[in-house]
């Protein structure tokens, strides 16, 4: 009897969560998956098949955009790691205890402003008549106005700025748990700064590092506003293709196919990344 009531309460407890997963995540994904397998054979007539996928493969511009998105997302993830690690290390290990909460909050401030407003903020700074361009002219560094928007570098900077926070948070929480005595032991046993960093700090931070990389990569690859607003027509971001198929062309079948492909491809990249670094989800993200 006891175990039955235990089971019942477990079921009741899990029910809202399960409903949420099923209704908001699983069902739409199944729906998208189903739509992507419909072939249009005539007006209002559909058959199940892989025609949408073969169409994708047959059009280089589509899969080139997907590859480009993945490659730029990897770059953004890497840059976010390079920028985020020192910040996280400073917050977790060097800053005084009392300053920590404040610094952490400072990192969170950009989140209080919506994506859209932040992107427009960048536009105000970087456009031809923007603050950066006019200051440079005023200082005499350049003679005419320069357009700093609509190129890959700007898109990458904007994306790193948007996602770096999601790299910092997991890193801070893992590094926070690291005992200073461990670093001192590393030096005491003869390690140089570099050795201690490579053999003690990085392996220790690995769970947070992998979690941060996965989150930033997924967020970047799936982002829409920043690449479109900062990159303009040239951005060739894969989410833009999805948007076009759904909204502009009203081709839901192709849009759904692209959506499934984006999810599958980014998951594949994450999996390859985990394999290459010898990690697994169980030993990193799910740890602790």
């Amino acid at each position: 009897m006891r175990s039955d009531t235990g089971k019942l309460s477990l079921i009741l407890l899990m029910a809202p969560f399960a409903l949420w997963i099923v209704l908001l995540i699983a069902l739409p994904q199944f729906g998208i998956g189903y739509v992507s397998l419909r072939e249009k054979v005539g007006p209002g007539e559909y058959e199940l098949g892989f025609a949408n996928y073969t169409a994708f493969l047959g059009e280089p511009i589509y899969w080139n955009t997907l590859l480009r998105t993945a490659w730029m997302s990897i770059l953004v993830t890497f840059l976010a790691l390079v920028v985020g690690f020192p910040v996280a290390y400073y917050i977790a290990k060097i800053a005084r205890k009392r300053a920590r909460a404040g610094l952490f909050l400072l990192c969170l401030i950009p989140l209080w402003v919506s994506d859209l407003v932040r992107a427009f903020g960048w536009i105000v700074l970087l456009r031809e008549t923007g603050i950066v361009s006019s200051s440079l002219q005023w200082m005499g560094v350049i003679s005419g106005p320069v357009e700093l928007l609509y190129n890959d570098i700007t898109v990458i900077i904007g994306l790193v700025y948007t996602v770096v926070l999601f790299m910092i948070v997991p890193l801070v929480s893992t590094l926070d748990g690291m005992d200073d005595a461990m670093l001192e032991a590393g030096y005491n046993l003869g390690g140089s700064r570099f050795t201690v960093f490579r053999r003690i700090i990085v392996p220790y931070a690995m769970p947070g590092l992998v979690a941060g990389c996965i989150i930033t990569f997924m967020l970047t690859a799936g982002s829409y506003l920043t690449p479109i607003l900062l990159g303009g027509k040239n951005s060739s971001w894969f989410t833009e293709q999805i948007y076009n198929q759904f909204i502009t062309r009203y081709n839901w079948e192709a849009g759904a196919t692209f959506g499934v492909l984006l999810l599958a491809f980014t998951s594949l990249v994450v999996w390859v990344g985990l394999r290459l670094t010898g990690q697994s989800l169980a030993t990193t993200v799910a740890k602790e």
Partner: protein
Amino acid sequence: MYDLRCESVIKRFGNFTAVNGVSFGVPAGSFFSILGPSGCGKTTLMRMIAGFEHPDAGDILLKENSVLNLAPNKRNVKMVFQHLALFPMMNVGENIAYGLRCRGDAKAGIGEKVRAVLDRVGLPGVEDKQISQLSGGQKQRIAIARCMVLEPDVLLLDEPLGALDLKLREHMKIELKQLQHQFETTFLYITHDQSEALVMSDNVAVMNAGRFEQIGPPRELYDNPVSGFVAGFVGDTNRWEGRIDRLVDGTARVALNGGGSVLAKTGANSLREASAVEVFVRPEAVAIGRGNDGATLSGRVDSLLFNGANSRILVRTETGKLVEVADTSGATGFNEGDPIDIHWHADRALCFARDAA
């Protein structure tokens, strides 16, 4: 020949002086302990020796060479941390090999050295275990092996037994002493537990509020403490406050606060008549029965504390003081409430000036 020497080392944190003019030398191959209550600056002193703090004044010499300008990773002192600080992301073998690899040993020799040192600490064949699979005592030995494989001039140990349970602590005391003999390395051991220091050490320094009060072999600290702090901190003792009535040839008659008077030898310091003092008498110095020289107290047995060879009789004197008396045989036949006389020889009681506090 000293393996380690400190000369008037001072360390301040802001206005607070954590280590205040400490000087000592550790002879090669000996076991030296620093004993003091928590917060007295022991860890700070050790961190200066290891190079993690820089002294504000004074000098630290290893094998007679000053190491003040050497980075921590260039000093040949290795440290066993309070919570050991083993690397959880490496297995036992990698933990031990870490130092060898930092030093640039040839790959081929490393495995052999790791095996040899694990043999010596009595844990052969655990190279592939994870740190989390080890017991407390095993972790301890791995932490020591990780240092000893590098053949340091001095091994520093910061209260390494603090985290262990009582039984294991007793066992590790003996084992540490044996390891020190076996490696023939100089150990500098920090503890707040006087029994650890007394059992293991060749020499003990008693530290209080950033200063060394006394340095000497355990027996000397026990028998001839130079201050009230040392007398009270090292070993069990009875302690009463009072005032000197009469002073003849280094023997004082002390009127105790609350009534009664006893005879006590004055410690080596400038006590005068009417000085406020503390009297210290070890439980084993107190004998049962009436003595012939003055320091006899009468009272009743308050309680019997049985602890094998460490048994005690608590006596409440007529003036209401509690006296701990060693009851070595554990079979004196007293019952609670029995009348009892106790006495001690004036030489076995010591009095020191009471601290201003």
